[in-house]
Each structure stands twice: as structure tokens, then as C-alpha cells.
């Protein structure tokens, strides 16, 4: 199990290096998924199967969704097929593929070696144990995490608001004397602003 732990850890570090050195978001995401799966394997090796499973479900699953979003957003042009071909160059997928095959090898050897319940040392941490801890002594932290998610959601929804929708819904109290700083706004922003004010005058 030590070898499994160290191999997965090395893979995690290499994959994360791939994430932060990658200049293309999709390439970086490929490495990120490998890194997350490697961390999951580290958890398994440490005897925390529940954390490992969560790592796969939550992080790798969520990153997959992120992946889809990035692909959707970057893929809008007419050069889609060309881009797809560019993405599927061996240079792109070779690194993550090698790293994940190492992970697969690690997983298979520990499965075949009948080392299924193996861990480095210490007790196996089950889902039940995690649950009792979370809703016993750590209850306050769970509640704080809930508030944290609420705050993140509110901040994101406020900052991510689309301008046009926003201006139409808002009441303009003061005409506003724009200072020098207001003039530097991007042209596209101004265009949406104009569209919004025309919508406002229609109402």
C-alpha cells in the first residue's frame, strides 16, 4: 500500500504541475481531472474510502461539468472541427493518458494482490464515522459551511448579473455626474448600456 500511496501522490503532483503550466483551459482541465483522481486514490490508500469516493464524485464529477461548460463556451465559432482536431493531437492527451494509466496500474495491482482492505496504518474511516463526527462535535462547522455557500452564491449571482437585465430592473435615482473614471469603460459595455436605456424609455 505504501507504493500505491507514493505512486498516486507522485501522479497527483505531476498532474497538478500540468494544470498550472498549461496555457489552454481544456488541456489544464484534463490534467486537473487526473490530479483529482490521483488524490482520491491517495485517500483510498490511507484508509479513507468515503473521502476517496467523495473526491471522485464531487470533484471529478464537478470538473467534468466545468469541462463541458468550457467546451461549450470556446466552441461557438465556425472553426469547431478544426479546434477539435487541434485538441486531439497526441501531445495533448499523451501526458494525462500516461499519468492515468499509472493510476490504473496502481489500482489493478492492489486489487489483484488481494490487498483490498489495505491501508498504510491507522483505522479505516467509514462513512458512518465521518457522519458522526460531522454532525456531532463539528456541527458548527457544517452550519458555517452552509452560510459560506450562501454567501458565495449571493456574491456570484450579484457579480454575474447581466447588465441589460439589470438596468431595466433598476430604478435610477440620480442622473449621476460621471467623473473621469467612468469614461474608460469598454465600448461593448456602453452598447449594452444604451440598449438597456432604450428599453427603459420604451417602458
Amino acid at each position, binding site marked *: 500500500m505504501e507504493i500505491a500511496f507514493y505512486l498516486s501522490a507522485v501522479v497527483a503532483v505531476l498532474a497538478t504541475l500540468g494544470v498550472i503550466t498549461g496555457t489552454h483551459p481544456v488541456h489544464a482541465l484534463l490534467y486537473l481531472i487526473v490530479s483529482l483522481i490521483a488524490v482520491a486514490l491517495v485517500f483510498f490508500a490511507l484508509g479513507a474510502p468515503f473521502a476517496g469516493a467523495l473526491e471522485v464524485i464531487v470533484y471529478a464529477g464537478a470538473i467534468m461539468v466545468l469541462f463541458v461548460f468550457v467546451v461549450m463556451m470556446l466552441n461557438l465559432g465556425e472553426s469547431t472541427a478544426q479546434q477539435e482536431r487541434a485538441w486531439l493531437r497526441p501531445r495533448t492527451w499523451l501526458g494525462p493518458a500516461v499519468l492515468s494509466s499509472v493510476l490504473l496500474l496502481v489500482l489493478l495491482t492492489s486489487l489483484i494482490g488481494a490487498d483490498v482492505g489495505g491501508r498504510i496504518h491507522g483505522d479505516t474511516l467509514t462513512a458512518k464515522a465521518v457522519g458522526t463526527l460531522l454532525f456531532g*462535535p463539528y456541527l*458548527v462547522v457544517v452550519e458555517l459551511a452552509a452560510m*459560506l455557500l450562501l*454567501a458565495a452564491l449571493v*456574491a456570484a449571482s450579484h*457579480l454575474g448579473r447581466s447588465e441589460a437585465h439589470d438596468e431595466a430592473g*433598476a430604478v435610477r435615482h440620480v442622473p449621476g455626474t460621471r467623473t473621469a473614471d467612468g469614461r474608460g469603460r469598454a465600448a461593448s459595455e456602453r452598447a449594452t448600456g444604451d440598449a438597456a436605456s432604450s428599453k427603459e424609455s420604451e417602458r
Partner: protein
Amino acid sequence: MTSLLALSPLILVCATAIVVMLTIAWRRHHELTATLTVVGLNLALVAQVVAWWQAPVSVTPLMTVDGLAVFGGVLILIATLACATLGHAYLEGAQGPREEYYLLLLCAAAGGLALVSSRHLAALFFGLELLSMPLYGMLAYTYRERGALEAGIKYMVLSAAASAFLLFGMALLYSRTGHLDFAGLGEALATAGGDGWLMAGMGMMLIGLGFKLSIVPFHLWTPDVYEGSPAPAATFLASASKVAVLLVLLRLLQSSPVQDAWLHSLLAVLAFVTMLVGNLLALTQNDLKRLLGYSSIAHFGYLLVALVVNDGLAAETAALYLVTYVLTTLGAFGVVTLLSSPYSGADASQLHHYRGLFWRRPYLTAVLTVMMLSLAGIPFTAGFIGKFYIVAVGVEASRWWLVGGVVAGSAIGLYYYLRVMVTLFLPEPGMQRRDATTDWAQRAGGVVVLGLAALVVVLGVYPAPMIDWVRFMVAG
């Protein structure tokens, strides 16, 4: 039941956040949202009394409600109340949705309350994140201004990096000691001696917390964020957020005193450098918010002196200094907010906006003058009492270098605080006027600012009640 009562301020603030959120979903109404927020915060302030009756009590292994926690909670709630009132004045003239500000403010206040009563690294981390996360939204609240967006993004990226340092430091400490609670950590550290990993862990935690307090090598974000963000958000960042982080650092240092001579002298050097660099960089600023940013860096340098000494009167001194600092900062930023409120666009924070303010708004000028005097530590203002205690603690512990730093820093500080005051009284130029509304003193924001000014003067002349209260809370 005792635990619930002891945590009632935190619970009330969280509940208010939920109620405000549901009200916004039901109906967008600026006055209603602001009123609900203020009522909830006041209830929480009253609930601090209830919590004080229960104190000292441990709530789960994560939190403790004692004098320091109640003291910090009261200070944070007062600062949040002032920010809510100033935010109301500021947002009245703003475009776009206004109600989310209060929601974010309440969440951040809850984070601060959790932080000051935490006695466990997990609670510390979650409290800190709950304090910072809404601040990203608040700092970039008027995201159509490029400055505000820049401030929000800068704070978010750097704060995330600091959190990573903090977490890694905690992991190192945990791996060496096996404890996450402050008390257990303190015991283990006392017996462990000079272990390289432990030292690295403590250093990394210091980086994480030092970033939030803008201690000097980690201060670069402060002026930009203060300058760009909307004034009420900057007020919260400068007052409540810093109070919470400093108090948790104080609690951490109290329960696990720094044994290591190396780390101890590192803290002293940081304090010294922070005072001098903060004051020196403030000298050439032409923007009042930037200037206040640098001045807050310097003030936390002074506060670090109390943490370095960390015995005898140190906790009381830090608490007392925090009271005077919070009152003064709230007042100074309050004036900036009132001047910026009636306008859209960037805040009125350039010094030339304040040129000749005395001839137009004499009372507002008086408020800003009092705040500047208090920041400089002139006698008969609250700032003097705080600075006096800092010097006294330094002298008592024979930390002459640090005392010299405080004196030199104050001397340099006097120059730029006086420069602001001189600007206020210069004859009015023919440039564009940025002015508070004519009825500013009858509005809630104006009343808050006037009250703060009165408090700063009264506490400067007759500080005994404040000193007694602080001693009672922190020592008792």
C-alpha cells in the same frame, strides 16, 4: 440550552441573513431590507448580553464564548451596524440592485462572530472564509466601476493564496502535533521544542493571517483595494474584518505562546517594519482612501507590539487600541462615504475633492478633523489613549526598538494627517465640487458619523469607562 444561548448572537445574525434573503426574493425594497438588517444586528447586539451571562462556556470543541469573544462580537456588530447605515446612505444614489449588499454584510458579520469565538483551527478557517467570501462580493459591489471590480478580483486572488498558506500551515501543525484545538496545540508546541516542520507550519499560518491584517511584506493589496472598492465595503474591511482576525491571532498566541526565540524576534521585526513602511508610504498619497489604507497598515504595526509583548497588560492594550481604532476608522471612512454618496461613478476620495470643505460643510469637516487627530494620536482624542497604552506596554517590557518605532511612526504620521486637515481649510478652488447632500446631518449616516466623532472626543477626555469595560471583558 446554555450553548444555544451563548451562541445566540451568531445564530441571530445568520437568521437575519436568511430572513433578508427571503424578503429580497419576495420583494425588492431598499428601505425594508436595510431596516430588517439593522433590527437583526441590534437584536444580536442585545443577545451579546445574554451570551455574556453564560460566559465563559465552551460550545462544542470548536468554539468558546468568553469575555474576549463577547468583546470582539460587540465591536464587530457595532462596526457592521455603522457599515449598514453608511451603506444605506451610499446605495441610495447607486444604480443597479442594492439589497444584496446587506445580505453579504450579514454573512460577513457572522463570519467575524464565528472567528472571534473560535478555539479550534477548523472553526478559525471557516470563520475566516465566511468573513472573506462575502467581502469579495462587497468590494466589487459597484462592478461597473473598473476600480471596484479590480479591487474585488485583487482581494479574491490574493486572499485565496493566503488561505492556501494558512491551510498548509495548519496541516503541518496537525501532522506534527495531532491537535487542531488551540489548547492542545499550545501544550504540544510547548513540549515539542524547535522542530523545523512546526516552525514552517507556524510561519505559514502567520503569512495567512498577516495577509488579512496587511502586515508589511503582505500589505501590497491594501491601498489598491481600499481605493477601488465602494466606501462602505472598504469600511467593513478596515474595521470589522481586521478586528476579528486580530482577536483570533491574539487568542492563538495566548493559548499557545510563542516559545521559539526565532519566531518571537520575527514577530518583533514584522511589527517594526510594518509601522515604519506603512507611515512612510502614506506620505506621498493624494487619495484619502489610499492614505487611510497605509495608515491602517501602520496601526496594525502598533497593535503587533502588544502581541509581541504578550503578557501583563498586552491583551487589554490590544483590545483598547482596537476600540479606538475601530471608532476612528468608521468615522473617517464615514465622511468619505457621505461625500461620495450622492454621486455615481468613482468615490470622492481624491484629496482635492476635500479642498475647502470647511467653507461648505463645517460640521462634516469637524468630524473628519477629529478623526484625523485621533488617528495621529493627539491628546484629548481616543487615539491618544490607545497609543499611550501601546507605548506603556512597550516600555514596561523594555522593548526599546519597538517603542522607538512607535514614536518615529507617530511623528511621520502626524505630517500626512495634518496635510489632510490643512487641505480641508484651504480656500475653495474653482473645480468640480463633490459635496455631501445639504441635509446629511439629519440622515442616518450623518447621525452615525456625528455620534462617532462625539464618542472619539468623549472617550479621549474621559476614557475611564472604556478602560474599565475593556479590562472587565478581557481580563474577566
